[in-house]
């Protein structure tokens, strides 16, 4: 079953036509990778999935994005959507608070004050993000004291804590060193069992390593999508072939 169905999606930033008639199904509990050269619209598409583009001025969107069959742009409750569709950003962006507060943030924002629920959820989330062992003894120290890779896992934990179905990731490892990147990729391998994951990456190698499905974008168009295997080994479109062969980009 598809988690998302993107239909004939057009997106403009003012006069810039950033997404052109995108049609993309995103299957449940799979990892879908969005790849393509810089500026092709990967991040833009990702951010339409939890309506993060609402925060930007002058964005006009046509077409529709269905989450479990319901158009997310019809439903007025954006907060509920965003709780269901969590997001992890390129640069780890923990809040300037303690580790504990970071993870509990999303729950507290919903008015949950029950200490027991909070404690449990924080622990579960940190365990699921493979961070618990490293931070359990300093939950009350500032999140900024963590290394880049730990911060990124903290951001994942924070997202998991609000019990989403989908996790969107925008180049989550591009600012990390290889070892930290490896840890995150291992983690994603665990998460895919429970969550639908959509990841933007500039690294074709990473897409190959971690994704089930790959979608290739080119200057606002979705050129090709399908099983990762197939996109990389037997691309249909010439541009895809050029890109995955390293002729450009």
């Amino acid at each position: 079953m598809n988690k998302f169905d993107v239909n004939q999606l057009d997106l403009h930033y003012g006069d810039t036509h950033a997404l052109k008639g995108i049609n993309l199904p995103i299957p449940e509990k799979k990892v879908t990778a969005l790849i393509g050269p810089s500026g092709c619209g990967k991040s833009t598409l990702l951010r339409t999935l939890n309506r993060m583009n609402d925060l930007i001025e002058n964005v006009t969107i046509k077409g529709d994005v269905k989450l479990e069959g319901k158009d997310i742009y019809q439903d007025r409750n954006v907060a509920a959507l965003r709780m269901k569709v969590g997001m992890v950003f390129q640069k780890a962006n923990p809040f300037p608070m303690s580790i504990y507060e970071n993870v509990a943030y999303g729950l507290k924002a919903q008015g949950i004050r029950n200490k027991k629920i909070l404690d449990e959820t924080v622990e579960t989330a940190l365990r699921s993000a493979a961070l618990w062992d490293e931070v359990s003894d300093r939950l009350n120290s500032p999140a900024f004291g963590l290394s880049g890779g730990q911060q990124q896992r903290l951001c994942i934990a924070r997202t998991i804590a609000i019990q989403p179905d989908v996790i969107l990731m925008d180049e989550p490892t591009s600012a990390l060193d290889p070892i930290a990147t490896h840890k995150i990729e291992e983690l994603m391998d665990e998460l895919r069992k429970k969550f639908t994951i959509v990841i933007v990456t500039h690294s074709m190698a990473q897409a190959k390593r971690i994704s089930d499905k790959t979608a290739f974008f080119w200057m606002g168009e979705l050129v090709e999508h399908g099983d990762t295997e197939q996109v990389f080994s037997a691309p249909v479109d010439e541009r895809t072939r050029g890109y995955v062969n390293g002729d450009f980009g």
Partner: protein
Amino acid sequence: MRRHIEDKIALSLIWGGAGLTILLLVWMLWHILSNGLSHVSWEFISSAYTTVGKTSGIFSMIVSTIYMVGLSIAIAAPIGIMTALYLTEYAKPGSKLVKVIRFCTESLAGIPSIIYGLFGMTFFVVTLGLGFSILSGALTLAILILPVIIRTTEEALIAVPQAYREASYGLGSSRIYTIWRVVLPSAMPGIVTAVILSTGRIIGESAPVFLTAGMVTRIPESVMDSGRTLTVHLYKLTQELFTVHEWNQAYATATVLIVLVLLINLMTKWIASRFNKASY
């Protein structure tokens, strides 16, 4: 070679300009402090001002100044901060309403302070019947500092990394929760700076103050009493400089004002640095 000479000239101009500034600065500070410091005593600061008696201290002016600062900030800070929040977090940038609000706050910033005096005297003192009082003065000054608070707070809010907001909204938080938990704490040093800058402004004003709050030298007992701030006092003194005693008072009052401004500046820095540390 020619470039070399031009570089030399440019560099000497820069040193010259900076030198001149520093010279003026040191001269002015030295002149006032050297003449004033020796006349600043505990008695001068803590005793009342009398025409008849022996003491001519500035205690009541200090009290009036504190009243004026406290009340003006209490009125302007919440309004200013909420306005800044509206402009940065709520309003659609570029909408007509925002343009109007921005135009108005910017106009407020451009209005010379004497006009505030004129307005305050007509509107608060006479039309609203508040009389010469700390309240009239504080209301007038509150409008006067509003743009400073709005603009500085706005800058602080804009400087809050967008990543925090995105992360917070990404977790399904509401706008007000995001503001309260993430945006305001991060912007706090800027907001504190705004408040302290305004404090400096209030302390420094004279015309709009005595046109609205009067210049009675008594310690005000309520906000409905008139009062004389330190700066107004200095102005009054400079208008009556003929005995050595009055010269000394003027220098001493100027010294107190400079020290006050110095303290305010140091406090701004200290608070900003503390907040920077506190925000991890």
